[in-house]
């Protein structure tokens, strides 16, 4: 596991079938997935350990991530298979200005496939563990 943004998280996994653009895809005030074309549209990212293969869509996603971390309606942590700068930036800035560190991590395919929606996981400097 590689940290793009270091931090700790505990939460239930929400594994997305397709990448999600946070801007235009998530309401930062509630955490609801508002992209109706997305297979998980209508579900909430709030407090979840969000898994998606890679990032997608608008540059404004960074702002939506930062706003979600500020308001407490964002994910608890994010696990991907490939680095995504838009997501990473939102988390870096929330850490810088609010001191709230939401971990953003990259894992290999084998580890990515180990977790499914509903699993309770913890992210820490020791890695990702089922709890």
């Amino acid at each position, binding site marked *: 596991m590689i940290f793009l943004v270091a931090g700790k998280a505990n939460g239930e996994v929400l594994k997305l079938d397709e990448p999600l653009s946070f801007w235009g895809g998530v309401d930062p005030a509630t955490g609801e997935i508002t992209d109706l074309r997305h297979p998980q549209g209508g579900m909430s990212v709030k407090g979840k350990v969000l898994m998606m293969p890679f990032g997608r869509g608008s*540059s*404004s996603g960074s702002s939506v991530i930062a706003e979600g971390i500020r308001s407490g309606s964002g994910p608890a942590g994010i696990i991907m298979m490939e680095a995504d700068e838009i997501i990473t930036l*939102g988390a870096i800035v929330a850490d*810088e200005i*609010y001191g709230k560190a939401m971990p953003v991590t990259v894992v290999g395919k084998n580890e990515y496939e180990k977790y499914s929606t509903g699993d309770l996981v913890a992210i820490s400097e020791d890695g990702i563990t089922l709890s």
Partner: protein
Amino acid sequence: MTVNLSEFDQSCLDGQEGPAAASAMRVIVRLAEAMKATELLDVTSAHIDSCLYHGPAVLDFAKWLEDQGAKVKIPTTLNVSSLDLIHPDLYRGDEDWGIQAKLLMDCYERMGCKPTWTCAPYQLEERPKFGEQVAWAESNAIVFANSVLGARTHRYGDFIDICAAICGRAPAAGLHLDENRKGDILFRVDGLNDALLDRDVFYPVLGHLVGKNSGNGIPVIQGLPDGVSEDRLKALGAAAASSGSVGMFHAVGSTPEASTTEEAFLGTDPTDVIDVTPEKIIAARDQLSTASDSRIGAVSLGTPHYSVQEIKKLFELFDSESVNPEVNFYVSTGRDVLTEASLRGFVKPLEDAGVIFVTDTCTYITPIMEAVTLPVMTDSAKWAYYAPGNLGVEVIFGAVEDCVASGISGDLSVDSKIWVDG
């Protein structure tokens, strides 16, 4: 991995260039580490997407920089915001949200950014040259800069744009570097009739299909006519950056790093080959509409911001007709483009015909449009992609010719013959 910092980078981090540069450099270096960059590079211009209000965090961030004395070091343009400062009455949103949005806009102007308020900075007089390293945010501007101008920017999100503008530096990684600009996936346009390839409406549909099938790789499109216009490439790129995470594409014979398919792939083999067939194009077109009513309530054009050429075409299509009184007809564009189109005589007749021009913002990111229960028609795949989620409207995608005909009559008018092979 650690990033090798130049003397200047280190002096920023150490605070010798002031506290704002220190904070901005810290964000750049943290991103550089995440991107596995080994060093930073100079950038000559920036385009800021962070000026759109999404809630308190974005204003907190801008104030955090400004309070530390931040000023941009390189020419910096501003993307759309939530307000139309030229036509302020168009804003129908929450009053406090509007006040916060204006505070954010003012903050970026005070940091020295140019109040261009457009998502199409490549339509401004000064734009990056081939090979120039820049730090641009806004997904459609990124894909245009890389693909059409041959300038080099990574797929930047909000926040890093202003940090790069303050320091004039960005991570030397991603699309800044030669090796990351080669094609990955080959799209072969084949078996489509030439008449369709000569229609504007084909290009956003192709972009939608390409974006959906590119993963995070760089698509190479083969089989288009040579010298596809900038407006068509703009529509293609914006669509691909909405349906996928495309930061750059090559259109063989049109974009500057793809005079041949081999050049676009830098001599390597594609990881995947996808044939763009008439069936796939029609399926992609149909994915862009959520409704098929016989009446429409509104039309929205100009996502990304319409160019002078596109406004001229609209002027010609209206041909002295007027918008139906039951339809609201919006065109989003940049204030600079609107000024030029006005000087060329296209704007007043269109306004007299009932067209509402929106500047500095866009109809799908802020409450501008009057509430409609009937579907909204658009020629933009990006608008069609985002508006249903953002605004809760039904959308019908169509050619600009169809949008104008429908806007004049109020009845949905679609020329579906152009999509049929032969």
